[in-house]
């Protein structure tokens, strides 16, 4: 497929972009607000287009374990779900992190806790960035703020997953998944052949030739001293990510007196809030973390020396604010503003919160 400009939903864009990124397999289970991902894939018949496998599993548990199996064979494999489904996948994600397998997990977040609601939310920040399942691990987390980024990040996510041999999460939300925007789609990247996989990924469990020892994919080691070394190795990858993979966007920050920190849909809302604030004579900038892990702590720390106060704007009861506060380390006032349970804040509400919580004193 050649380059193309289309009007698409975020969920459709990520599905189309994944086919074009040369992904080998998708395993998923329907859940609102992201069922368009598997619906689009099934309708597109990627098996005929590129040979990509698409399978509707019997549960999120099964889907993530299909991902685990396929990822262990060196295939470019991914899944998507929304909050309650992602909770179900956590056991598998922990195994994937422990076994050091590359894969991409898309979370189109909805309001919780429990079955919650089907409307957009950002309340899965803790789960996405602090581990999520059991054990000491991190996902590399990318947070798209547009349909274009839904499309662009899936290819990036695969590259990062293979670079670090670990799971990468695209943390989206019901707004980005459901809204339609124009999107530039890249041209088709060919899938790797079986021989290329065998050559590129010598760790893959694809059958033992006489020329090598057997490959084992496992997260188990009963010898705790070896397990500690394994953990130290995993931590070194996370430190490397912090050095090399931080991504962020700064808008209007150069002469700002105040700063919004917001990602995903909240960052889009804050862009309008910046205009509304300017009409009131308030100079406010936006720092948008694109990677939520690794978190742009250095960049936020630098901004803390330039502004009078920071508002962390999230569609949650205040999760990312903890990372913002750690980066700021008490130098300026940091407050949170958010709506939750599926309610999306208006740009005016955000400005009001800035005035009330930060400027007001």
């Amino acid at each position: 497929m050649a380059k193309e400009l289309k009007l698409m939903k975020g969920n459709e864009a990520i599905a189309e972009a994944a086919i074009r990124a040369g992904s080998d397999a998708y395993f998923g289970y329907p859940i609102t607000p992201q069922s368009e991902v598997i619906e689009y894939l099934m309708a597109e018949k990627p098996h005929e287009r590129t040979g990509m496998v698409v399978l509707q599993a019997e549960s999120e548990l099964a889907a993530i374990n299909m991902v685990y199996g396929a990822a262990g064979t060196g295939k470019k494999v991914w899944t998507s779900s929304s909050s309650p489904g992602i909770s179900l996948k956590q056991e598998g994600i922990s195994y994937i992190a422990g076994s050091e397998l590359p894969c991409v997990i898309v979370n189109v977040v909805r309001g919780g806790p429990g079955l919650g609601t089907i409307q957009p939310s950002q309340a899965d920040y803790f789960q996405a960035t602090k581990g999520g399942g059991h054990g000491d691990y991190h996902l590399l987390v990318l947070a798209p703020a547009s349909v274009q980024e839904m499309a662009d990040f899936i290819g990036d996510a695969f590259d990062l997953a293979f670079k670090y041999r670990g799971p990468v999460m695209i943390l989206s939300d019901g707004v980005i998944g459901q809204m339609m925007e124009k999107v530039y789609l890249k041209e088709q990247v060919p899938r790797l052949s079986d021989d290329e996989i065998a050559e590129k990924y010598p760790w893959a469990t694809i059958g033992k030739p006489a020329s090598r020892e057997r490959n084992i994919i496992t997260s188990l080691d009963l010898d705790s001293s070896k397990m500690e070394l394994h953990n130290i190795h995993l931590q070194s990858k996370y430190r490397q990510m912090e050095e090399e993979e931080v991504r962020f966007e700064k808008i209007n920050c150069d002469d700002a007196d105040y700063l919004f920190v917001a990602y995903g849909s909240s960052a889009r809302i804050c862009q309008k809030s910046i205009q509304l604030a300017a009409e009131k004579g308030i100079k406010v900038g936006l720092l948008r973390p694109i990677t939520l892990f690794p978190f742009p702590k250095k960049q936020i720390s630098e901004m803390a020396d330039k502004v009078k106060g920071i508002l962390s704007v999230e569609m949650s009861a205040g999760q990312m604010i903890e990372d913002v506060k750690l980066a700021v380390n008490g130098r300026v006032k940091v407050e949170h503003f958010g709506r939750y349970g599926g309610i999306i804040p208006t740009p005016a509400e955000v400005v009001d919160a800035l005035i009330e919580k930060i400027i007001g004193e």
Partner: protein
Amino acid sequence: MKFEDIIKKENLIYKKTPLMTDNTLSYCPGCGHGTAHRITMEIVEEMGIVQDTIGIAPVGCSVLAYEFMNVDMTQAAHGRAPAVATGIKRCWPDKFVFTYQGDGDLAAIGTAETIHACNRGENITIIFINNGIYGMTGGQMAPTTIEGMRSSTSPYGRDAALMGHPLKMTELVAQLPGTCFVTRQAVHTPSAVRKAKKAIRKAFELQKEKKGTTFVEIVSNCNSGWKMTPVQANKWMVDNMFPFFPLGDIKVPE
């Protein structure tokens, strides 16, 4: 005198398959797992398919199966082996993919994955070791613990009214259109071992033909968990397990 002088090459009648590693088995003496491992690996060797075979180890006594089976292997989360196998097989349809699972793994926590992999007719081989007990965690009741059988969580014997009935998973999956070969075997005597090995070969051969899921149950013992000697355990198995879990083919391809 040298070893070679005592054991002459021309007198060799049996040799350990190189597809079993030299690692010390973690199974209790008298347990059927070692034999079940060996005959599975012998079939992979005899069919000459090691370069195309991927095994899935479960959680349970055989969690370390990858330490003993000298083939590429993935260790799955508890009960998820059929899903892991599905992921591999869908991406590599010409490879041989098998799971090796115990009764807790396959018939309790992994019931959904087992039924749905079989119902989709995944072209995988499921080897199901049923010893009616949770061996690794110390002898708790399994979904296949028969009525009246004692375990650490049914210390007065399984009471169906209180604890539910033992589950005949093999008969259950035989009902599904996706399975093509479903059989129940044992490995307690040389003739049983020969029959079980033949069944595993058939399962792998049918997998090659992509006829659907092949499912081999092996009724086995757990002398440690059952608190018996190995000989007593095998006798108890014959007298008590076999009447409820009768050996033989349940579904064969037409």
